[in-house]
């Protein structure tokens, strides 16, 4: 398992230019959202959480699709499967790597959000926690579907088509929780959204791990 992780990190470190490109894409998306709303400071601040997570979601399609790119070139996937590790290990290795990548993107977009939408907050730890949970929710089913769509032709369209309806609860919960952190949470509603996120993550990290073996079977 650690070996799988180490391989993933090595791969990602080698392609860190890709990560920077996705970051720029995410920041550009946030900028575009503000143009869509217009110079209405109050509205921008109110919806800043939504923009942040939409930006992260759009960026995730690029990141996730990329995560199996190395395996598809040179047909390395078959080589991986011949190793005596179970596919489950491969899955969790990839999913964790994607999770970390998405979390990095999410955290990097926070200062962009603060600047563009005047959406600062002092509760940094809560924000970090929510971004970690939310990106985990994106990563689990995202990695599974990335593995699937990497093996077929129209991969670009299919991955978001499959993923987006699925992660609606994670998106809802993340946006609500982030919004409460930024705008204030007088009635401590944030906790129930975090619980929903944790439940979503628990269910999908286990379910997708279980099913991954069938997806990459040759």
């Amino acid at each position, binding site marked *: 398992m650690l070996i799988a992780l180490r391989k993933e990190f090595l791969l990602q470190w080698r392609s860190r230019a890709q990560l920077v490109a996705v970051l720029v894409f995410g920041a550009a998306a946030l900028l575009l959202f503000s143009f869509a709303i217009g110079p209405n400071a109050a509205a921008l601040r109110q919806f800043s959480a939504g923009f942040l997570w939409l930006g992260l979601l759009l960026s995730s399609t690029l990141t996730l699709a990329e995560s199996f790119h190395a395996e598809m070139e040179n047909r390395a996937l078959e080589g991986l499967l011949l190793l005596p590790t179970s596919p489950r290990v491969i899955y969790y290795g990839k999913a964790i790597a994607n999770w970390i990548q998405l979390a990095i993107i999410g955290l990097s977009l926070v200062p962009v959000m603060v600047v563009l939408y005047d959406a600062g907050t002092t509760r940094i730890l809560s924000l970090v926690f929510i971004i970690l949970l939310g990106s985990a929710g994106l990563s689990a089913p995202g990695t599974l579907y990335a593995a*699937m769509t990497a093996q077929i032709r129209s991969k670009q369209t299919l991955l978001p088509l499959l993923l987006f*309806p699925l992660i609606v*609860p994670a998106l809802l919960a993340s946006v609500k929780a982030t919004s409460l952190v930024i705008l204030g949470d007088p009635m401590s509603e944030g906790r129930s959204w975090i619980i929903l996120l944790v439940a979503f993550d628990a269910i999908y990290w286990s379910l997708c791990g279980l099913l991954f073996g069938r*997806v990459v079977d040759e």
Partner: protein
Amino acid sequence: MNKRLFSAGVALLALAVYFAVLVTIADEYWNLNISLGLPVVARTLIAVFGGLIALVLFLAADDYSDYRQPNVLIAAGIMLFLIGSYFGLFVAPPEQFMGETQRIMYVHVPTAWFALVAMTLAAISAIVFLLGGNYKWDARLEASIEVGVVLAFLLCCQGSIWAKPTWGVWWDWDPRLTTTAVLLFAFIGVLALRRFVEDPLKRAIWSSVATIIAYVDVPIVYFSVKWWNSLHQQQSSPSTVSKPFWIPLRANAFGILLLMTGFIMLRSRIAALRLKNERPPLPVVEVTT
């Protein structure tokens, strides 16, 4: 076609329709009690479970070899739907607050039930296929997903049409309606996945996996939208059928049950024939033409 299973299904269905529809009609219009001494609870259970088990029996008996059975089911379904619509449109009285729009519920509620039943059948087919590898279940999977998508789309249309006179907007973020919309997109995605994968084995396995994942998501989506909406809604969501008039509801329910079953059976045959026509042909599906 397994004749015994199918006949058992027909018998059970007849019993269910009898208790659900005929007993009520006899009671309301002819002041006759033909309930055979059974209390209301027992009758309701027979109606509900009888209908669902009949559905399972019809599908299990189906080996794609005959066209009479699905056609019979569809014909019976159309008849029951016409009866239910007649009662719903012309006989049932307008409701106190909802006025005439109450009548929409007599089609909306059954469509909702069976959209969910179709998706459940899809999930079950997916699991059975993953466990056994019999392509008949892949055909059923494709069929129930497509029929479920049609019903879900219909549900969104009906919900929208209901929302406009009631709330003044075409969409009111009601948790049930919103969940249906998400469900619709999720399962359209699975159908798109099937279209883009050429290898039949991969297609079957992947769409089964995707179906299971999407189906598990449905309750999660429902609860999250419910919480999300409850923080905003000023009005309380109305009950779907506040003072129900049972006859149109039940007649339509069985009508749509039979239509759905017949459609799934026909669509399964299409899927099975396509599998048979694949290059190279899969030797696992026997379909007489």
